[in-house]
């Protein structure tokens, strides 16, 4: 990019380039880095402005016409080591709260600075390998040392662009707003758990199994038809308090029905749930709820 055209790549250029970068010691800092060397007083700000060494390198390549071979690698490395020392002593001296930043934040800065350092080291390696004469026989293994860096830069640039594209999509809460209408009269519908017949009989068998484990227990069970009839008689008594004995038996139920009704009545009597009353010999028999 030897012509360094102004419009070129302006999309991928950090916004910060057009305005004062930061105020450092009272003076606006508008100068962007010309190489990988970052003035120590602006270190934090640079670390914020760029998303890392790849981002900075991309910027330098696109905007500053960076010539890698012109970078004084030795000097930069020395300076980076200086930052590392400085930050370490800062952390040690000031302990927990440094300008409102937690030690964690400082540790993060430290980590970032280290990442720039790794980049500097990588560039130094590339440069040294380029300068050394190649051994002819090892063509394949001895790949162009720049290739890996170029590949990484390209890959990073794609996602840097994707991030901007993503940010320009209309977003809920920023460009689009949800609408909402209250329903003051609505109550959440109460849904009941489903129970299958199988669940029910399983629960029953479990209850019975447990009852039998209690040795003293002797669970006696009448057929369901009898229990049902017992329930029906009680239900009828609840309404009328007084039932005629013959009303329990309905001819159209057949013999089986009569037997069931009779057994139910016997069971009710046995459990003292009903009383039989006969006012006079051979008079009508009545069923009623016992008085206590």
């Amino acid at each position, binding site marked *: 990019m030897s012509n360094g055209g102004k419009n070129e790549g302006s999309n991928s250029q950090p916004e910060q380039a057009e305005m004062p970068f930061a105020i450092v010691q009272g003076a606006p800092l508008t100068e962007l880095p010309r190489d990988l060397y970052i003035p120590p007083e602006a270190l934090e700000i640079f670390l914020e402005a760029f998303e890392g060494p790849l981002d900075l390198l991309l910027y330098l390549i696109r905007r500053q016409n960076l010539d890698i071979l012109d970078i004084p690698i030795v000097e930069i490395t020395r300076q980076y080591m200086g930052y590392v020392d400085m930050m370490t002593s800062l952390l040690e001296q000031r302990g927990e709260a440094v300008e409102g930043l937690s030690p964690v934040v400082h540790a993060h800065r430290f980590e970032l600075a280290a990442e720039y350092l790794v980049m500097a080291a990588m560039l130094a390696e590339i440069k040294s390998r380029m300068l050394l004469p190649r051994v002819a026989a090892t063509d394949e293994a001895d790949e162009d040392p720049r290739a890996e860096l170029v590949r990484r830069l390209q890959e990073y640039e794609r996602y840097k662009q994707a991030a901007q594209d993503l940010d320009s999509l209309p977003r809920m809460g920023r460009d689009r707003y949800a609408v909402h209408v209250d329903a003051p009269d609505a109550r*959440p*519908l109460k849904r009941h758990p*489903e129970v299958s017949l199988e669940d029910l009989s399983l629960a029953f068998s479990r209850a019975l199994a447990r009852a039998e484990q209690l040795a003293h227990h002797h669970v006696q*069970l009448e057929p*369901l*038809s009898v*229990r049902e009839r017992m329930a029906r008689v009680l239900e009828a008594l*609840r309404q009328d308090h007084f039932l005629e004995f013959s009303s329990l038996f309905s001819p159209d139920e057949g013999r089986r029905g009569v037997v069931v009704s009779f057994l139910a009545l016997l069971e009710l009597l046995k459990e003292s*749930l009903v009383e039989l009353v006969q006012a006079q010999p051979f008079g009508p028999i009545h069923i009623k709820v016992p008085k206590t």
Partner: protein
Amino acid sequence: MSQNEIRNIIEVALLAAEAPLNVERLQTLFAKGDLKPDTQAIRAALAALQEASAERGVELVEVASGFRYQVRAEYAPWVGRLWAERPARYSQALLETLSLIAYRQPVTRGEIEDIRGVSVSSSIVRTLMEREWIRVLGHKEVPGRPALYGTTRKFLDDFGLQRLEQLPALADVRDLDALHADLFSEQERALANAQKEAE
């Protein structure tokens, strides 16, 4: 700015706002450059919006702090279904209690507790009552007059049964061979014989 636009802006503002908006607040949405509508114009727009939703499920109402859209009362049940709570599962204790009421009705809480060997919590009974699966058939005439529980028609309906006898036979419920004597009373055998004769 057209009347239609003023109306649309007021509508979306009311729909997007978290709380009711009054006329003054609605007016602030219009910058001076927009040919700020006066309160009369805002009121006219509100009236037009009210009319426009006459046939819809939402209505524009005025409450203490301003105007708001809300779901008409007639449509509340559908919204309630939207918020339907995920049903919790019933506890084993509840299912056992229900099965004992079904198979042993009429039965008191004490009798259920006797069989289960643990107490039956009131909340279980309440839940089963609320579900309309059980009902009180009467009271046992013993001290304390405990309620006698039985199952309901709804219980049968919900379990796809026509009669209680269609509940799985005890034979299916568990391995009966060893326990046969315990499970079937003399009465049952008598019933079985009677049935045989009838056939």
